[in-house]
């Protein structure tokens, strides 16, 4: 028996677990199932629900297994390993007693409770509850609390497990939830019932083991057992969080996170979680053609005929801009088609972006990986605000800061990131001076430093120089060594890396986004591009392919409706370069088609038939020849430190030209970053509330 292992006997079975394990973990290791309410793997231990009681032979009373460290347990008198029992009359009686107390004040309103069917208390009451109540007094009544537009509270149901309080304080980093008063009067509330200011507040709904905190937008919409559940990928940010889309009929009813250790652990940002009402609003469900200044519904045949007409312009007068949510299949099919037409003016990046064109993949993905930040000991964020651009990753940075003493420095506009960080400046000049700063010392002393550049820093005039300088700095401080690739770009759009991977950048002599939209083109094709500035587009004919009627569609002359991310099986590449598949949860709206299919059909009309007839054939084409390792040949895999060699090479001819301009924030409004979000009522409510809040900006 090694020093850091501890032997014990659980239900007659001998096991050996690390000494730091809790008794609950040890019991689970032995295959026993322990009921619990307050314990949660990713939160600190509270030990207040008492549901996880087990019997420890020789102990005077039952033990709360979540709060007992096995290393602290005494052996039996004869020196043998302690005996623990998770079953039997003793344990049953203890748990039955706890359950009876929990139910004393819990209302019997399961038939009208949204948690019904997926409620921990309901499930465990089936196992440990009594058939009837022995409690003759009145149940206590608690006022419902206001917690903002996302979280509905029915506080009578609360069992004071404090998971939500611990989540807000530890993971979200906003200490706004707490338990006030005591004893029978204890209540969970925000301070004076203010709305939660976290982008992760929706997670308390999942954490709540009862129906006290439920989803306000989803209230009374559906029962869990009548929902069709589809595992998929989120596209609200470039993390590609694992989600479960719950649908009823043709409507998405809610979106929940799934566990994905490498990406989102088990959290989800409010935007990803509550976007779903936007999927049913402002939808483009049939093709439209603008006639006499007004859009009229048309058939696909008519629409394709007008598109063919519009694409008869000279190839150098045609520009194609891909938007933030574009899936790889559509990008590939569109690129193949337009290249075959001789169009070189293609771009998937925001206006002014200066990255992704040199063909080195490592220079536009997050090589350090999202999970890698937990191994880092110093992190420099350049022109990025992860709280806005990748809220769940921000929680992970906070976790590393809180538990692993990660030092964070940041260049960009001052912002509250929920953790202390060194604010080094607002623009590229701070990057030039960093070697002389205190944080530069921290970086060069760090064993595993990490540098993350955001789009805000790469879209200015000096974007390429910032990237080159940051890469130089990374090499200098030892962020790029064998086995550790601590340099990367944090993207803000789900489709960006995938589109870059298929080469959706300007071809030879091709124009980039800013030039395409500057009025030089006769025909502009927008692939769901709504975040770009269309004001300078001039008299160009605009073809919009997308799912929502937003900025692009309102300017469009021809609209081709495509499916949204919940309506198709599609490939997305996240900011780490991880290739993932979203799945179809519901049918596309009306006559909308998947993006790649639109371009496959259009290619036929244009007489340049694309060589794939099915999505599978297209993906086979993407993967390239059998047996050859390409970007798309593996699913769910982040290259991470494999790109070290490519990062070691300095960028040629780009390191000079840093300006004094400040980095602009990528988003002004966390809740309004894409067409689906802008169509969502819930997001509009959140956005209005957030802008009304006078959030003090703390720069430490």
């Amino acid at each position: 028996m090694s020093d850091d292992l501890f032997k014990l006997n659980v239900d007659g079975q001998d096991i050996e677990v690390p000494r730091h394990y809790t008794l609950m973990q040890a019991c689970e290791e032995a295959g026993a199932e322990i009921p619990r309410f307050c314990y949660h793997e990713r939160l600190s231990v509270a030990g207040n629900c008492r549901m996880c009681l087990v019997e420890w032979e020789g102990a005077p009373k039952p033990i709360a297994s979540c709060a007992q460290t096995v290393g602290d347990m005494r052996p039996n008198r004869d020196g043998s390993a302690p005996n623990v029992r998770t079953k039997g009359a003793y344990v049953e009686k203890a748990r039955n007693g706890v359950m009876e107390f929990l139910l004393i004040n819990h209302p019997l309103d399961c038939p009208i409770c949204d948690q019904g069917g997926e409620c921990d208390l309901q499930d465990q009451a089936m196992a440990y509850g009594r058939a009837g109540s022995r409690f003759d007094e009145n149940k206590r009544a608690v006022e419902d609390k206001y917690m903002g537009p996302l979280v509905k509270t029915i506080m009578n149901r609360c069992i004071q497990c404090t998971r939500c309080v611990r989540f807000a304080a530890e993971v979200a980093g906003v200490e706004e939830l707490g338990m006030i008063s005591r004893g029978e009067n204890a209540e969970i509330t925000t301070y004076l019932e203010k709305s939660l200011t976290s982008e992760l507040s929706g997670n308390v709904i999942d954490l709540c083991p009862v129906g006290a905190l439920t989803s306000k937008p989803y209230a009374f919409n559906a029962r869990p057992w009548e929902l069709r559940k589809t595992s998929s990928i989120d596209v609200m940010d470039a993390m590609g969080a694992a989600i479960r889309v719950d649908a009823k009929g043709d409507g998405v009813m809610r979106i929940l996170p799934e566990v994905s250790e490498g990406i989102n652990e088990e959290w989800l940002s409010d935007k990803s979680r509550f976007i779903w009402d936007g999927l049913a609003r402002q939808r483009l469900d049939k093709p439209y053609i603008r006639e006499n200044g007004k859009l009229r519904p048309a058939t696909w045949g008519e629409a394709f005929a007008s598109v063919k007409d519009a694409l008869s312009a000279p190839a150098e007068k045609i520009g194609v801009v891909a938007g933030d949510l574009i899936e790889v299949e559509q990008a590939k099919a569109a690129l193949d088609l337009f290249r075959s037409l001789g169009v070189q003016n293609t771009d998937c990046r925001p206006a002014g972006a200066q990255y992704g064109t040199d063909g080195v993949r490592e220079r536009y993905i997050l090589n350090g990986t999202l999970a890698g930040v937990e191994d880092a000991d110093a992190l420099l964020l350049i022109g990025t605000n992860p709280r806005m651009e990748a809220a769940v990753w921000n929680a992970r940075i906070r976790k590393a800061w809180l538990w692993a003493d990660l030092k964070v420095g940041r260049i960009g506009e001052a912002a509250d990131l929920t953790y202390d960080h060194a604010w080094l400046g607002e623009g590229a000049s701070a990057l030039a001076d960093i070697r002389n700063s205190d944080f530069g010392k921290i970086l060069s002393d760090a064993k595993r430093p990490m540098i993350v550049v955001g789009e805000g820093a790469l879209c200015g005039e000096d974007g390429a120089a910032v990237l080159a300088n940051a890469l130089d700095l990374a090499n200098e401080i030892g962020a790029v060594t064998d086995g550790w690739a601590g340099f990367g770009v944090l993207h803000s759009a789900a489709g960006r890396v995938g589109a870059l991977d298929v080469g959706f950048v300007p071809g030879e002599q091709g124009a980039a986004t800013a030039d395409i939209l500057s009025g030089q083109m006769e025909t502009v094709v927008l692939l769901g591009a709504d975040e770009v500035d269309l004001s300078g587009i001039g008299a160009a004919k605009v073809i919009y392919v997308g799912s929502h009627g937003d900025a692009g569609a309102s300017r469009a002359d021809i609209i081709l409706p495509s499916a949204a991310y919940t309506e198709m099986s599609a490939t997305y590449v996240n900011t780490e370069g991880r290739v993932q598949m979203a799945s179809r949860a519901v049918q596309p709206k009306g006559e909308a088609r998947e993006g790649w299919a639109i371009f496959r059909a259009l290619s036929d009309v244009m007489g340049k038939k694309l060589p794939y007839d099915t999505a599978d054939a297209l993906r086979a084409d993407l993967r390239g020849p059998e047996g050859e390792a390409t970007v798309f040949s593996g699913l769910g895999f982040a290259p991470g430190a494999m790109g070290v060699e490519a990062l070691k090479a300095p960028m040629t001819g780009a390191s000079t030209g840093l300006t004094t301009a400040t980095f602009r924030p990528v988003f002004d409004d966390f809740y309004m970053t894409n067409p689906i979000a802008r169509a969502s009522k819930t997001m509009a409510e959140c956005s209005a509330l957030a802008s009304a809040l006078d959030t003090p900006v703390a720069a430490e």
Partner: protein
Amino acid sequence: MALRRFDMEAGGDTFAFKPETEEKIAFWRGKYPADKQRSAVIPMLWLAQKDNQGWLSEPAMREVADRLEMPYIRVYEVATFYTMFRLQPVGKYHIQLCGTTPCQLRGAEKLKDVCQTEIGKQMFVTDDGRLSWEEVECLGACVNAPMVQVNDDYFEDLTPDSFSTILNKLKNGVEAHPGPQVDRINSAPEGGTAILTDPELFDGTRNKLGGLPNLPSAEPEPEPTAAGKPDESAPTNTQREVPQKENTGKTTLISKTESAEKDSGQSASSTDDED
């Protein structure tokens, strides 16, 4: 115990500690290291309550939170947990009436009736702003039950009559003397000492020793010649909080013998009653 919520209206928008409190704040904060300043939250709230006419308003709570750099909700949790932090205004004289078993057996219920008729409901402040009352749990003076605490002073061995006399004095601004309201010193027997009065008990004649070896008259013991010296280094807390109360008002003692001795004993024990 009813729901405890801030009286937002009465609390107003601002609160400031009194200048003379700053020294006490520095004392309490000085007890904790720089990164554990939030440990001082309870004494700070207590000081804030004292500086706010005996109750804790929402701005006062925020002031404490800001000073200790704590999130408001964390201080709010503390303020609502401890019932000695009063979240509603109280009278100039706030009466805490002990209703726990010993006092109850000795007639606290009747005192409650007195409060109800003389003042009103619990936590109700009389129109002149002078009186309010609440029932509390044991105040640790069971030997003098029934008793009440008025602001910082104990009034003990009460009867409905003596209690309502005290209330009337407080109401009319007449000085009321704290302590037992019957003929006894502290918790000594009523009417004076009745047993162990024989001087023989104390001079050694009873046990036929012909004197006690350690009587003051006996040979003085030699000065101890200890090898070690008492620790003369400065105490960790150089600044002791000195109670502001003058020691002159010990008029509570019904004039008896050995009053000087009692006085010294009293003042020594009263250093802690700030809490």
